[in-house]
């Protein structure tokens, strides 16, 4: 949606600036270096897949301006759930994908246990609540979550290097004090893995249904256009 006034302004301002410099030569150099690192990783047998998929993660995050922090913040702050809806779609895709991986591994392992042993299955309890609230506050005031600050360092944000430094310090202090939290909360908390309670296919179907329902809730909320009072 544009208008006459905006078109006029665009033309006026565009004329005032000389041609932009192309950064493509640098892009070619960095692409070449990344591919060289990839081949070195293959030769040394050192996590080459992580390097390649990491590059693709970085490109995707940057090109789609994907921001996990915004997915939680924008619904509250400006009533927009565009990224939240995209994440819900992504969770539906990965729920189905992880299930397929689980079933595809029946042949080699002989039992259905890939997600439990290799996925992100951890105790749930008060520590999760405290951690989530702290994380939520931190990511909003820092202007990005963990994947967000990595992506923005790549865009040239020096501020996000500070966030990374703070994150590193916080993570180390947290790791050092882990014994305290583990003894008072985490070791007593249960690990709830849904397929322990219902059959695996049912867990998948129910989870997808819940995610689809949440998608519609998010869509409805977006249309309400709630904006936090300032």
């Amino acid at each position, binding site marked *: 949606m544009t208008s006459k006034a905006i078109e006029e302004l665009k*033309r006026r301002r565009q004329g005032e600036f000389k041609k932009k410099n*192309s950064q*493509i030569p640098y892009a070619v150099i*960095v692409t070449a270096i990344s591919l060289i690192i990839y081949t070195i990783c293959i030769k040394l047998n050192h996590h080459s*897949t*992580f390097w*390649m*998929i*990491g*590059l693709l*993660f*970085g*490109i995707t*995050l*940057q090109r*789609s*301006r994907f921001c*996990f*922090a915004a997915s*939680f913040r924008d619904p509250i*702050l400006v009533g927009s759930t*565009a*990224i939240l*809806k995209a994440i819900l*779609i*992504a969770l539906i*895709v990965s729920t189905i*994908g*992880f299930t397929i*991986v689980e079933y595809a591994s029946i042949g080699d392992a002989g039992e259905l246990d890939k997600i439990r042993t290799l996925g*992100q299955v951890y105790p*749930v309890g008060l520590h*999760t609540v405290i*951690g989530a*609230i*702290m*994380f*939520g506050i*931190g990511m*909003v*005031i820092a*202007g990005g*979550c*963990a994947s967000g600050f*990595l*992506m923005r360092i790549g865009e*040239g944000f020096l501020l996000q290097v*500070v*966030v*990374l*430094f*703070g994150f590193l310090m*916080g993570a*180390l202090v*947290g790791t050092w004090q882990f*014994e305290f*939290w583990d003894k008072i909360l*985490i070791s007593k908390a249960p690990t709830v893995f849904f397929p322990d309670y219902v059959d695996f296919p049912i867990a998948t179907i129910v*989870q997808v249904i819940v995610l689809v329902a949440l998608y519609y809730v998010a869509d409805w909320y977006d249309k309400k256009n709630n904006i936090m009072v*300032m």
Partner: protein
Amino acid sequence: MSGKFILKKQNKSIYLFRYKRFVTQRKGGEVLKNHDRILKKPWPYMVGGSILAILNIILFILTDKVWRVTSGVVHLGAYVLEKIGLRPSEWYYFSQNTGEGLGTGEMFIYNPYIIMNAAIIVGALLSTLWASEFKWKRIKSGKQFVFALLGGFLMGYATRLSFGCNIGGYFSAIPSFSLHGWVFALFMFVGAWVGSKILIKYLLT
């Protein structure tokens, strides 16, 4: 720093001249438009999210590991601490969480997520450079600096309580059918609400 000024009334002939220039620019602009579409135009969020999910599944298939970020940061930090003479390997955390992937005699630096985090930075750099949109963005104020450091610290500390950031504790945890991913997501909204209040009160001036 906002100034207010009234636009001068434009002469009709100038309008016409500008319109003609606009039309000719358009003709030459078609090539540029294609170039922009491939290298610059942001992808829709849905496309981005779906690709991230598919990449996560491919990573799981190829390496038996799911996408995590903090694990790499923690291990990089532990490696640095080790280099300056401390002994983080004796910490309770590393003795408890054998799932962190540190085998006997292995060093912290071997953690695959360190490489992956570096790759995410390089990948974002690549994407920005191909779009010719790279710019060093300096830190604007002391306040910005303090909030960035504080926010980073809070996030970093929180990941040890909730087993991951919103990648490991949420984006990979919910598809792993673990309840902690759902609880984490729910209370992230509470945290984001508090954070938004702080942001409006202290940062938006």
